[in-house]
């Protein structure tokens, strides 16, 4: 697994510096996200790599390596500004190919949920999320939209009951506070 070959230490004499200490705390936090625990099933076969468009077109992106970092608990390498995670094209090829049903793309999205908890987000992504949270839609609506629709005999955009949407998404919109009472995690 390691890049530089290391001589196997004699049994019972493993030196501390040779041991990868898995950060289980990070993995437990990830596992709380919907389908965030799936990386545990990854056996590093690499089936996700060959068909990954982001891997084909980027020197850095590799879903197998991302799963390995998750297994080692190396969250610190993934949960950073301009994270490599944003290179994922969400094409679902890895989900299609994985023989272990790890759904690497879903693990990546769960990691992005952790980035959201930390408030580390690319601006364009943040902007669209904000539009959704304020209007219930991801495409901004204005009078020009309704005029354009009228040209095709279509009624104005129907209203979205925002009171209902706000209630549904509440726990995360306010300062990333913990889940509210009554919601078992």
């Amino acid at each position: 697994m390691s890049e530089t070959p290391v001589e196997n230490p004699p049994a019972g004499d493993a030196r501390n510096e040779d041991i990868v200490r898995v950060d289980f705390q990070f993995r437990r936090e990830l596992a709380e996200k919907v389908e965030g625990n799936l990386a545990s099933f990854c056996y590093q076969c690499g089936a996700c790599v060959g068909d990954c468009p982001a891997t084909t077109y980027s020197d850095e992106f590799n879903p197998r390596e991302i799963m390995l970092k998750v297994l080692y608990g190396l969250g610190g390498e993934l949960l950073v500004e301009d994270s490599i995670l944003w290179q994922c094209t969400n094409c679902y090829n890895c989900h299609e190919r994985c023989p272990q049903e790890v759904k690497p793309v879903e693990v990546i999205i769960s990691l992005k949920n952790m980035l959201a908890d930390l408030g580390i987000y690319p601006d364009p992504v943040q902007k669209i999320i904000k539009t959704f949270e304020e209007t219930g839609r991801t495409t901004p609506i204005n009078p020009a939209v309704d005029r354009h629709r009228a040209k095709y005999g279509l009624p104005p955009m129907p209203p979205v009951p925002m009171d209902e949407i706000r209630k549904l998404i509440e726990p995360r919109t306010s300062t990333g506070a913990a889940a509210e009472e009554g919601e078992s995690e």
Partner: protein
Amino acid sequence: MKRFAFFPGCLIPARHPAMEFAIRHTLGNLNVEIVDLEGASCCPDPIYFKSKDKLSWLSVAARNLTLAEDLGLDVFTNCSGCTATLSETYHLLKDEGLRAKVNERLKRIGREYRGTSRVRHIATLVRDEVGYDAVRESVVRPLEDMKVAIHYGCHLLKPSRIMQVDDPNDPNVMENLVTALGATPVRHKNWYLCCGKACQTEDIPSNMMHDLLGTVHDVQAEILCMICPTCFGQFDHGQMKVCKQFGEDYHTPPIYYFQLLAFAQGVPYDELGFERQRFKPECLRRFEESAESAESAVALPPGSGKTE
């Protein structure tokens, strides 16, 4: 007439109303009754809002599905992104634990998700409920000798366990839909590539699109047909950027399948919103001219959204 709840999403009704018009017009001709879902929100999108909080994303998606459940109808989508969100929600909420969590959220607004409404992409709705033959019979302007490249996009097909639409390695639904119009579908070498919209870097999508457009050009397709408005945006506006960046002109007009179908069913070119595209499918005009002499009764008044 078969009835289905229509989930139009955001992008098509707000940015591409000509696509919505085409859907309503063509499905009317194919004897599908569209029932609008009152109070629907964004699906929500499977790229941005899902990245923020999956549980909230599932809850809002489940709310949208309950609107169709209230009507006792299956729901169809016209955007592959909406299809991804709603199909995945339908699939994931078969898990009792997750469904209970989502229903706890829905309880706040007096709703409950039951999982009684199936989700279909409009392409598969037409395949399964209308049939290719009926599509062929609805065509008054066959698009003969027209080579049409196909862009499947990602979320119509994958993950196939969830979508259950077609073989993701060798699909045929789009080819058959295009063939029903009298056109000739062509499979270019990079047909399976993604549009790259979700990727938050510049280089990956532009290099990918460059390769994809190159192979569409190689097979001498006149247009690139697709069934997702997000892919459409990438291939229209995005194509302009890629052409500039690489100093090449592929001039491959993208077209949303149901606009192509509406045209083949006789809607005038000028009433389908093509004038707003950066790359306009002007090649279609030749079918209008040749049909004009033979046929004159098919033209619809501008803006007629419904068929009587």
